[in-house]
């Protein structure tokens, strides 16, 4: 393992920087810099995806034969670091990071030819339909049923917590096609056109007042059998493959490093308790140093894990746990920097990932902009240890991995 960039990698970094510099508009940069959660604002992050797509960079981890960038782990890391530092919003993960790999790994030639290009271009915007009211951590308990009816499956039931389902025109779903001996059997991975008759979507509002999650109700929705990915009743295999991508496919450290820099910069702009700025207060400087130390060790772990051959296995869970807990810690530091202004509710100073429904002022805001965003990030980031397999579930997986 080499921790220093090679000349080629440094050249790649310069190329990325130049590209970001040339193509990021102020409007798109705002969507990245002023995010209140892991979700970019839909319109602007889609606009950015289109720019990336034109360059062939929309899917860093996909092989080039499917239109991906085909980058190495180091290149992906460099890109992520530069992207966040430049303030570009993330591309929505549900299509390119989650459904895409499932189709590449388990889809038919027709599915690849039809869906992958449209996923890259953003023509299809995806949501994930896994969780149900009775099936969260225990995903295999899912009940949404799909009955065989000739060329179609007829699907009915409810999903919940579906991120951006209100703006998605496609969804990948887990549905029950049979009741077999084990609940994991009889589940099918299905691609559903969200504009089909019988699909309805209802908003869920978060404690920060944002509408990003939804409930999806399917009432006798007809879906062509051709939209099944993998074999009927074998969706669990596809889902597990995809989950490993969701958990371990992307590094957290680039984002964490950029956050630390932003926190430090903001701390230099606000008064401290010891006469200087907050950055000069000894207790704050210690906290920041500790956070940097944790991230440095974790970053090196991510390099090791992602450079290793074979399936991510345990490291996917380690990355998910450590990555989300560090992300949450960043938002705690953010609240410290925000100080007294950290209690103000001012989403108008931010660029949330969905419409805001709680009352707030129109455009002006009080205090530093960083402080207006800090409490929203703090509240929203609580979700990191809940979704994508809660951190308790990840620790259960690791305990099994240790042979316990």
């Amino acid at each position: 393992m080499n921790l220093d960039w090679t000349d080629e990698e440094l050249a790649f970094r310069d190329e990325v920087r130049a590209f970001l510099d040339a193509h990021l508009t102020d409007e798109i940069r705002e969507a990245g810099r002023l995010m209140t959660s892991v979700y970019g604002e839909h319109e602007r992050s889609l606009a950015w995806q289109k720019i990336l797509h034109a360059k062939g960079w929309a899917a860093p981890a996909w092989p080039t034969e499917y239109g991906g960038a085909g980058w190495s782990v180091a290149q992906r890391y460099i890109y992520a670091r530069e992207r966040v530092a430049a303030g570009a919003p993330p591309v929505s993960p549900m299509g390119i990071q989650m459904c895409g790999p499932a189709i590449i790994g388990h889809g038919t030639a027709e599915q690849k030819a039809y869906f992958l290009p449209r996923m890259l271009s953003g023509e299809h915007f995806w949501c994930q339909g896994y969780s149900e009211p009775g099936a969260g951590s225990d995903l295999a308990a899912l009940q949404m049923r799909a009955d065989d009816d000739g060329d179609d499956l007829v699907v009915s039931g409810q999903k919940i917590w579906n991120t951006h389902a209100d703006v998605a025109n496609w969804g990948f779903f887990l549905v029950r096609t049979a009741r077999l001996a084990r609940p994991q059997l009889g589940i099918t991975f299905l691609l559903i056109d969200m504009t089909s008759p019988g699909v309805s979507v209802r908003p869920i509002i978060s404690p920060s007042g944002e509408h990003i999650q939804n409930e999806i109700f399917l009432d006798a929705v007809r879906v062509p059998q051709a939209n099944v990915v993998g074999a009927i009743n074998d969706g669990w295999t596809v889902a597990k493959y995809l989950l490993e991508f969701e958990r371990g496919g992307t590094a957290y450290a680039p984002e964490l490093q950029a956050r630390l820099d932003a926190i430090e910069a903001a701390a230099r702009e606000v008064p401290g308790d010891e006469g200087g700025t907050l950055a000069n207060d000894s207790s704050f400087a210690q906290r920041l140093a500790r956070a940097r130390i944790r991230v440095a060790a974790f970053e090196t772990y991510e390099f090791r894990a992602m450079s290793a051959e074979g399936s991510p296995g345990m490291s996917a869970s380690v990355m998910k746990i450590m990555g989300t807990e560090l992300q949450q810690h960043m938002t705690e530091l953010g609240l410290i920097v925000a100080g007294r202004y950290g209690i103000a509710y001012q989403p108008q100073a931010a660029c949330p990932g969905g419409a805001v429904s709680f009352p707030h002022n129109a455009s002006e805001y009080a205090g530093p902009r960083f402080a207006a965003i800090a409490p929203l990030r703090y509240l929203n980031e609580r979700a990191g240890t809940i979704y994508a397999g809660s951190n308790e579930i990840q620790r259960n997986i690791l305990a099994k991995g240790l042979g316990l």
Partner: protein
Amino acid sequence: MSLGGETAPDPVDLMVVMEELGEALVLEPYLETVVTGAALLRASGGPTADALLDGIVAGDVRLALGWAEPGTRYEWAPQETRAERKGEEWVLSGRKSVVIAAPWATHLIVSARTEGGVSLFLVAPDAPGVTLFAYPTIDGRRAADVEFADVRLDADALLGAEGAALPLLERVGDATIAAMGAEAVGIMRRLLQDTIAYTQSRQQFGQPISNFQVLQHRMVDMFMQVEMATSAVYLATLKLDAPAAERARAASVAKVTVAEACRFVGQNAVQLHGGMGMTDELAIGHYFKRATVIEGELGTVDHHVERFARLQPEAAE
């Protein structure tokens, strides 16, 4: 009921009331008016203060204290807000930031530098030269940044003796920390209770999730944090009449213990509710937000750890 003189509310009574208000998540500015504001008025004395204390009891008067400024953090001393005596009047100018409950207040109490030190003034929010920029807070209350542009005040707007406000603010600040800590205890009890009930009813893997030992231990840790916070609030409340350094150390014990408990209990209440914790629909989200606000009010953990370390016990008067 009276809030003045001999019949001022007993701190232990206030503690009990605040805990109830916390448990019911009452949003009205009781803390700002009946605890902080009334204590400042009582200590200041004089006919204006007495009339206002009666007004509080009658429900006509609501107070907000403007102390911190854009250029200060948690120190009580004002930096840019000044008042100058001009003949019979005072002229006030400067800015206060994040004045909690100011948009609801009938009267503002404002700290300012004067010739003799730091003084307190009573200011009408609608007086000429006073501008409020109001906004909601994440816990569903309201606050404002307030600007004073040569605001002319009558001689009796001065509360208490000129230049004597700093020790008073310190003392009332500690009383506020104790009362707010009691509110936090009420909030945390409810968070714990709701989490226990939810995990006992939520089924996953064919059983209530409260069966999982890791969740049991988490709730036990939440319980212990609430007990520590409760005890620290007792300490701060019972030391409110102690010599200044002893009182302040006890208040910092409460502030640090309560803030850390608010964070642990709030975060884990959300975590153990899973996705349900991330909706606006359940009460716990609202309790969590109020707990988060209390964490940072009147000084972060770091601020109070520093203060505690600075105030050596032998320095007690």
